[in-house]
């Protein structure tokens, strides 16, 4: 309830505002919505595992299961993964954990905005709070996954070093990249449930196109494309942290951060335009 709210608001039919005014209102929304975002995150966290016996286990389970499958396949020599430069268990665990963080980040904004719809049709609060709560949600889950990952990695041949701590910023980077795609999709994702279905259909396929369970083959055509894959630099650097694998420079990390920032901003501005239109079509 700040003094700045006591100004004149004018609502007009036009559905487009200047980019500058949209940018300003997104910025304002972040400022005003921060506390609320954190509260919503806490509220949903408490609520989400009520009535669940295993609770937080469900956050860490998917990457572990996926890694277990690949480790098993590799050990049984059913598939042949070229030399990864580190124990395959560590390699696969790292890859699938990062992938699960990435895919969760893509889906999260749409999911969160959808579940907040019942509030959005009734109340006027800074919509950016939902994006903020998504960010908290993802960070919390990612840290949980990292803790489990580190525990598991210490059972492999890898030896803990200070470099492992770099996994945290790398993880956050993956979230930022993922959520930027998520935000960009969300205006249509909230409106049409088809979008979510398509993404969930495409994600496993995309995982096999990414160097998650295998190492990049630099000479192949796919390998060349993989350097453009947003997830590649983060996974490669993570592997470098754990097992001294070569990585391809920090520049890609920076580039993807900048791109993600711009994409997120675009997504948020699009949401500003889209949400009133979505709210009027969502009934009460």
């Amino acid at each position, binding site marked *: 309830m700040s003094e700045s709210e006591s100004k004149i608001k*004018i609502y007009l039919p*036009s*559905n487009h505002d200047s980019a500058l005014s949209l940018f300003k209102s997104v910025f304002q929304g972040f400022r005003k919505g921060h506390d609320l975002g954190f509260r919503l995150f806490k509220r949903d966290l408490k609520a989400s595992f009520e009535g669940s016996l295993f609770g937080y286990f469900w956050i860490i389970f998917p990457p572990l299961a996926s890694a277990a499958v690949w480790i098993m396949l590799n050990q049984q020599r059913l598939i042949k993964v070229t030399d990864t430069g580190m124990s395959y268990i560590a390699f696969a665990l790292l890859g699938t954990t990062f992938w699960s963080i990435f895919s969760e980040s893509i889906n999260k904004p749409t999911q969160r905005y959808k579940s907040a719809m019942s*509030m959005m049709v009734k109340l006027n609060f800074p919509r950016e709070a939902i994006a903020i709560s998504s960010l908290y949600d993802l960070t919390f889950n990612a840290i949980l996954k990292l803790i489990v990952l580190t525990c598991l990695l210490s059972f492999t041949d890898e030896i803990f070093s200070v470099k492992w701590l770099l996994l945290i910023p790398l993880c956050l980077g993956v979230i930022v990249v993922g959520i930027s795609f998520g935000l960009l999709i969300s205006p249509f994702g909230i409106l049409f449930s088809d979008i979510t279905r398509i993404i969930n259909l495409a994600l496993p396929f995309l995982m096999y196109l990414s160097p998650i369970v295998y190492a990049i083959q630099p000479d192949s055509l796919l390998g060349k494309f993989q350097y453009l894959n947003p997830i590649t630099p983060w996974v490669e650097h993570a592997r470098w942290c754990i097992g001294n694998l070569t990585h391809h420079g920090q520049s890609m990390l920076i580039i993807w951060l900048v791109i993600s920032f711009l994409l997120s901003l675009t997504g948020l501005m*699009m949401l500003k335009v889209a949400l009133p239109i979505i709210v009027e079509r969502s009934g009460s």
Partner: protein
Amino acid sequence: MAEEREILVKVEGVSKKFCKNLKRSLIYGGGDILKGFVGKEKTKGLRKDEFWAINNINFELRRGECLGLIGHNGAGKSTLLKMLNGLIRPDEGKIEMRGKVGALIELGAGFSPILTGRENIYNNGAVLGFSKEEIDLKFDEIVAFAELKDFIDTPVQNYSSGMKIRLGFAIAAQMEPDILLIDEVLAVGDMGFVLKCFNHMDKLLRKSAIILVSHSMPQVVRMATDLLVIEKGKQQFYSKEIGDGVNLYYSKFGSDIGNFETNDKAELIQVEIKNIHKEVVKINGKVLLDPYQPVEVKVIINAKINIDNPAIYLIFYDKEQRSFAEVNNYSESDCIESLEKGKNYEFLATFDSLQFSRGAYSLSIALGENSPGKREAIFRIQSALFFQVDNHHHGWAPIQFLPKWEVRS
């Protein structure tokens, strides 16, 4: 009166269209979003399956005024409130809101059932824009207002619906808005709490402008200084003459006369009311009475069984659906012995005057058997007849006597 206070809400020619078909609505929505991104105007006018949910609404509201917004279900009241609250945009026209807007709409939206009342106070407060510190300060007041001291650490899922509303109102009541939007929130809640809420709103009204949506006319009449009646999205009535608007609103309901349900014991054939010595004047299909002239009510009943000691009741209802006057034929001289099966009977009641206030009224008719040791209802027909009274003496009470005054000192 003091000088005019400043205008806080200004609504000019506001319209909103909705689409009846969901799939098409989503497609239009997607298109509108895309157009918004690339900076193209939305389609003007109606597209296929669209209709005007709100059509050309205009009003102004100053600080200290309360606009009662009434209309049938689906008239567009909530849609209008959503636009005022900035949740959705108008398709035409312009809305200007000056100052902080508070909304009492769906109290407790965002309550999480598994969290306790205490946690929900903080969460809901945050949604309404309070910081944690502000809620810390107001916490005790909120709990006291909601009268939930003993249950504040109980999960909200164990609250009754009335308790939830109370908590929701208590939190929202902490807002100090310039403009307050209220949408039918006090429907649940016991008498005591509703009164408390009204007292609170009275306090708010002194420094803010209130827009109140309600189906409860006593509530509207109690609060409103201006009245806006919406029908099918259109502005039907907008004035400070609250009574007239309420009459209009009531006159929309079931004024088709003569369509009485029958039962196997007796049938109401006809009901009529008129001034005896005057030509019948009708307004909106309803008889307009002069309250200070003799009036007769004629009721024709067809008996389908033999009814001993028939008792007929005429019950007058005012626009709030309050029964405020009643007559019957209990006294010996008014009685007829019995109604014979298959015959029509005409009951005629004459009054020297019906000193009712100006407004719309309805008449309910009941027939019973009133034999010694046996009282049985034969039928009761609510609102068998609607009529209007035109009285230049008018006030909120339905009966306006014209006594002879004498002043002595």
